[in-house]
């Protein structure tokens, strides 16, 4: 019922572009994992059913490549946004408002473990906690390596002009194991840390609505709240990478 309260103060946490890109990532990630694992485990019964439903292995592969390109298009839009943010809006790509790793993140990690074992106060997370940064960089880095290994398997003739043939097998192995890692990471770590935590169960809505309440901001990102209070006289940039 508190959500319905119009007078409650809200703060913008994610701009429309970032919400849109998150939807792009969700949809393509799900389709990529379904088509990819259906092809990788093609001898299993469930995979046969899935591949049949997708109209055969050719179509499953076609869907996989299409959504891979769609996913990477999202990454490129994001990189263009970063350029725009830096060059046109004169934003800062480092510092507490960014995804850039900082020494404070390691201190927060240490502090968090102390807190978990009952040895101290919880860390005062800033705009992005170290877990959120890991989420971001896992996708950002994973997209590059999955993209390269995927491209090698997509155009083996081209790449075998420059690389030994066994690189295609290596790419295949990397692609598969990294896919397992990515699905495991998203399924266990991201889901439980971002969406299934008791505070926000069943899901964290701010990535879809873009808004967060003052109470939630103070609870989840006290560091950011403190900075906002300190800089209350001067306006703070609303968006970030």
């Amino acid at each position, binding site marked *: 019922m508190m959500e319905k309260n119009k007078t409650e103060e809200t703060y*913008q946490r994610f701009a*429309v572009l970032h919400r*849109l890109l998150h939807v792009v990532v969700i949809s393509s990630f799900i389709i990529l994992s379904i088509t990819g694992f259906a092809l990788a485990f093609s001898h299993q019964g469930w995979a046969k059913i899935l591949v049949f439903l997708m*109209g055969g292995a050719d179509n499953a592969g076609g869907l996989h490549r299409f959504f891979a390109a769609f996913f990477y298009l999202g990454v490129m839009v994001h990189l263009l946004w970063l350029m725009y943010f830096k060059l046109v*809006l004169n934003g800062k790509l480092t510092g507490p408002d960014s995804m850039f790793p900082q020494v404070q993140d390691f201190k927060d990690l240490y502090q968090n473990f102390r807190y978990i074992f009952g040895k101290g106060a919880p860390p005062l997370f800033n705009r992005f906690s170290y877990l959120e940064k890991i989420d971001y960089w896992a996708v950002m880095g994973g997209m590059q390596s999955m993209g390269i290994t995927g491209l090698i398997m997509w155009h083996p003739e081209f790449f075998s002009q420059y690389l030994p043939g066994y690189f295609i097998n290596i790419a295949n192995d990397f692609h598969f194991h990294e896919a397992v890692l990515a699905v495991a990471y998203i399924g266990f770590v991201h889901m439980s840390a971002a969406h299934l935590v008791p505070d926000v169960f069943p899901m964290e809505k701010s990535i879809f609505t*873009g808004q967060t309440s003052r109470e939630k901001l103070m609870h989840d990102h006290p560091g950011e709240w403190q900075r906002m209070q300190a800089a209350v006289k001067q306006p703070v940039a609303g968006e970030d990478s």
Partner: protein
Amino acid sequence: MKKNTFALIALGAVILIAAAGLVMHQLNGTPETGMGRNCLECHRAPNVNTNEGVVASNTFCFDCHTDKSRSMRKTETAEVSLQMVPDDLEKGPHRNVACVQCHTDVARTPHRTVAGASCDVCHPPHGEAEAHDPHRRGACQSCHGNYKTVHLDAADGRVKPARVDTEGAAIALIDHQMVDTAKAESCERCHYKANPVGAPAAVLPSKSALCIICHNAPLAIGHPVFGAALVILLIGVLLTLRFWFLGSVQGEKESLHRKIALSSESLWRTIFSRQFFTLLKIFLLDVVFQRRILQESVQRWCMHALIFSAILARFTLSIITAVSHKLVPGSSWAMALVDKNSGFTAFANDILGLMILCGILWAVLQRYILKPAHVVAEIEDNITVALVGLLVVFGFILEGARILVTQLPPEVAGYAFVGYPLSRLFAMTGLDWASVYPSLWYIHAFLGAAFVAYLPFGKLRHVFNTPLTYFIEEIAGVKRGERV
């Protein structure tokens, strides 16, 4: 004793020579008789899915087909040699393909082919991007093979490599080289003045992606004029967007970035809310079924719906065609949709074109002859009506000319109930329609380009503006009659 020994040796030598001669004779036997071959030379099936099997299979074929005298074949008129050069194959893209993978019906008795080489075992038919739709009636080899002369086979109405040259001498179709179809010579085999296969006298560029409004079209620019039209369209859209953001957005007057951020925020909140269903309702009732025009006047609704619904149907059909050809290129329904001569497509295109034409004629009648009080014929309206009208008229003329020059029989062309009568009419003029056809095509294409380029500037802007106005009015709660 010595004499006997000598006689025995001589007799032995004679027998040996005779036996060798007999064996040699048998080895030279023809493949039809099978004389001199081991049973298993023919009656075995190397696994042609492996390179090893391909080599084994082809070696057997090449045994005769690299030898002139052992590969003679009688045709109706002459005897030709089916001797081929293995290098033609070895240097091309089919080097790892067995002969019998394309020549699917030759490994049998009698050793003759009926179907010829079948490309469609592996290659799905290509779409509008590579070649215009009428090329569908050509055998693959007539473009992709290295044959200079092609002819129109009267039996099945298909264009094929000719079996006799212009002097009447028999040609053996033994060349296995693939030609680069991007080169002009490959097109000029058919596309010249007074050609016998019914091709237009000039090579025409590919359709453009812009043509998707009414036709199945590839993702290509096609001709520089289409490129220019696309640029003008994009500039027009950008100018319109800029115009929309000139005013203030929720109080923000200066920063374009803030204006875009604020309006995208409210767009997001509208789409991901219950209001989405309101928008869906408006889209169905007011955009697709044109409720507001119907409320104003049934006559105006009929006139507008004739044009609008027909264009919408052509657009939907083109999208379905393009997508289904992309997903399942070989399927019978994708082929029927792509082929302009198939009954459904020909009929649908003609009836939808006729609907647009009727709507335009109705509008012309209202504007210039009946002239009721509420109709004001502005110059922008006149340009729009003229563009769409001419586009459809030239579309029909082009269809008639195409049916005429490609010599389509009436039982196929009859489904084009406008185009076919037109083609009979054109046949009476005695004009060289194959030479006129390219000019007609360019007129239709450039009118189409002009239509697309004009979209964001003239009255056609209503295609985007009116639905948007309906949506914004509904969301902002503006009552009718209170519009600004």
